[in-house]
């Protein structure tokens, strides 16, 4: 609502004459050090009372210029710099880069490598959603959920450690397959984790999903319409909560997702509660995907033969994958050399962040925390 204001109510900068703020408005800086931003995100918020009038994101506190770095790295190396972008779906980021290189080379990946990639990617997705669940409980003031979710997440991280050698930034994927074969404990432990998750999910519902305070904090908060979700380029669970079908695994299948049976979870309400339920249901879908594969991992090579120095043909290549947060696009411009000429990562969090000012319009500070929790931002992925 446009309010009429007297000129005396407006504070302006003495030098530039720029309007700083209006009378009754209150500007606070949320971040770069703030518990709810999960990193060094800086939101400048114009408040009226506790109601948010406007939000302006200020970024770059963790900008490392990964895109510039990639211009100097070979096609084997640049994959690994992406683990540090969205560190919660490091494996899926690597997969995107490897797929882009394979697409450019026309390389056929052995079926065993494809299955391993998918299992690990879905495990990563579950681990990421577990962390999201833990943190969204924490953001809304409940500390206990944090520890519940970490039981399963730790078990998944242990599997990652055993198989890939790292818990968070896995770096397991190379162009043409995966770096090494699976650990012999892998299948046994994955199955144990899957039963553990299925057994424990009802506890999640008891402590958080079913809680009336929690539901009231999320319902009808942070509404994002389907049109806005498209216009802002939102992807992932944040957009699927608004009824937008955008699961890359379904729309543009890669690595053999087309052969698997799973549902794309879509809720139409567009509020935080819908986004919450999308993620909770996605955990089960990921479990379902792994269950289909875990007993039938094909035998054979885990890596296709590639040259030592990979050179991509001249041209532009775009590959997208579904990370835990949405669509990650890898756009490589090659001039035929051993390093990319230009490498662009279309990050899901960057687009999702741009929709937050729209969602938080007219909400309270507490709602903004709920919105950021359900959009699930990972800041290094925004800054890159």
């Amino acid at each position, binding site marked *: 609502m446009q309010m009429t204001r007297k000129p005396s109510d407006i504070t302006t900068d003495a030098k530039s004459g720029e309007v700083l703020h209006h009378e009754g408005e209150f500007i606070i800086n949320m971040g770069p050090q703030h518990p709810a931003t999960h990193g060094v995100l800086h939101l400048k918020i114009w408040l009226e009372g506790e109601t948010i009038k406007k939000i302006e994101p200020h970024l770059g506190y963790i900008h490392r210029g990964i895109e510039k770095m990639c211009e100097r790295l070979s096609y084997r190396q640049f994959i690994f710099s992406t683990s540090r972008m969205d560190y919660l779906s490091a494996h899926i980021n690597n997969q995107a880069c490897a797929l882009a290189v394979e697409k450019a080379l026309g390389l056929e990946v052995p079926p065993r490598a494809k299955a391993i990639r998918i299992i690990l990617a879905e495990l990563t997705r579950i681990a990421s959603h577990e962390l999201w669940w833990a943190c969204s409980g924490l953001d*809304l003031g*409940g500390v206990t959920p944090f520890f519940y979710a970490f039981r399963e997440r730790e078990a998944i991280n242990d599997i990652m450690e055993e198989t890939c050698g790292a818990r968070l930034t896995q770096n397991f994927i190379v162009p043409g397959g995966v770096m090494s074969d699976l650990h012999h404990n892998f299948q046994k432990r994955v199955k144990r984790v899957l039963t553990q998750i299925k057994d424990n999910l009802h506890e999640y519902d008891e402590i958080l999903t079913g809680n009336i*305070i929690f539901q*009231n904090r999320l319902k009808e908060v942070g509404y994002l319409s389907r049109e806005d979700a498209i216009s802002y380029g939102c992807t992932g669970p944040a957009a699927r909560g608004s009824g937008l079908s955008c699961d890359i695994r379904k729309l543009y299948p890669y690595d053999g997702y087309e052969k698997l049976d799973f549902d794309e979870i879509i809720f139409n309400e567009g509020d935080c509660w819908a986004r919450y339920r999308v993620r909770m249901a996605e955990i089960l879908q990921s479990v379902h995907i792994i269950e289909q594969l875990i007993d039938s991992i094909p035998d054979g090579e885990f890596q296709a033969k590639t040259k030592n120095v990979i050179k991509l043909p001249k041209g532009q290549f775009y590959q997208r994958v579904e990370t835990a947060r949405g669509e990650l696009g890898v756009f490589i411009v090659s001039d035929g050399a051993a390093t990319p000429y230009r490498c662009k990562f279309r990050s899901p969090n960057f687009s999702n962040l741009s929709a937050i000012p729209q969602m938080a319009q007219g909400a*309270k500070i507490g709602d903004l925390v709920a919105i950021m929790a359900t959009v699930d931002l990972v800041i290094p992925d925004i800054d890159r």
Partner: protein
Amino acid sequence: MEKLHLLFVFSFSWLASHLNMWLRTGIGNSFLLLVTEMLIAGISLLAFLVILCFFLGYMERKVAAFMEIRLGPNRVGPKGSLQIVADTVKLLFKEGLTPDGSDKFLFNLAPFVVVVTSMLAIAPLAFARDFQLWDVNIGIFYVTSISSMAVIGILMAGWSSSNKYSLIGAMRSGAQIVSYELSIGLSLISIVILSGSLRLSDIIQSQANGWWIFKGHIPVLISFIIFIIASTAEINRAPFDLTEAEQELTGGFHTEYAGMKFAMFLLSEYINLFIVSAIAATIFLGGWMPFHIGNLTGFNHAMDYIPSSLWFFGKTFFIIFIIMWFRWTFPRLRIDQLLNLEWKYLLPISMGNTLLVSAMAVFGWYL
């Protein structure tokens, strides 16, 4: 035989009367006697509060750990029981920062105001049979009036920090405490109506034949629940900790405090927790009154042998545990939901409840 009985039914009143007699024989001057007695009472109260806060801090960590399927503090001292001492030492040595833009006088005054107001409210509590610091004839009213002062310290702290988060936290606490005071008052009034007195010792005596929560049927149960909810809000504990709201306001009114000044806020939080639980235990659960069942004389006699102080502290810590349970189970409310809860649900319910209780008192519908 008399001594043996005392050993069993060890009560502070015996200790207090002996001390009094000893002092009377020792000090002739009545003025000096008064001063000495005040000093002893004050020092032992302070010592009690400090030990209490240590214990509550430890208990909170252990309860949290129990809720969160983890161990909790287990390194310093046996079972981690000295962890809180280590924390205190750390806080003592920390620099007490005063922000540059703050109103330094008020900034440094606020923690003391907060602690003093919460300490004042402890005066009329009856810790055991015949053991009460100040049996003031308006006991409950005194406690509610003192607790209404608590908001001022928080407002002072929030405003003088010259931090916007602190200011928002202070404004929230103002709205929150002022509103929830109404429900607390109304739920306490229901017992005042039934017992016919504001004096805490009278209220405890009125429960000799049964605690109010059993005698008062459903209306008293309702006011007990309302009291627990509203007092959790009044002392700013989760799920009503909007004034601190770490994830929203990075600590709210005490964002800028460090070191001992911050410890003061912590101290007052635990004292407040103890006070509201003690009041709830006194008003609804009979204070130091042992648990009796109708005509089971043998059982009642066995209950009488449990010291009255144990009864009081047992009930108090039971309620403290419930409030801690809230904290580690529920997510936080939003500010408008918080005020809606009070003004749209708790206040009308407790108003209707007060009417019911009055009817009960008039027609004598209680045991």
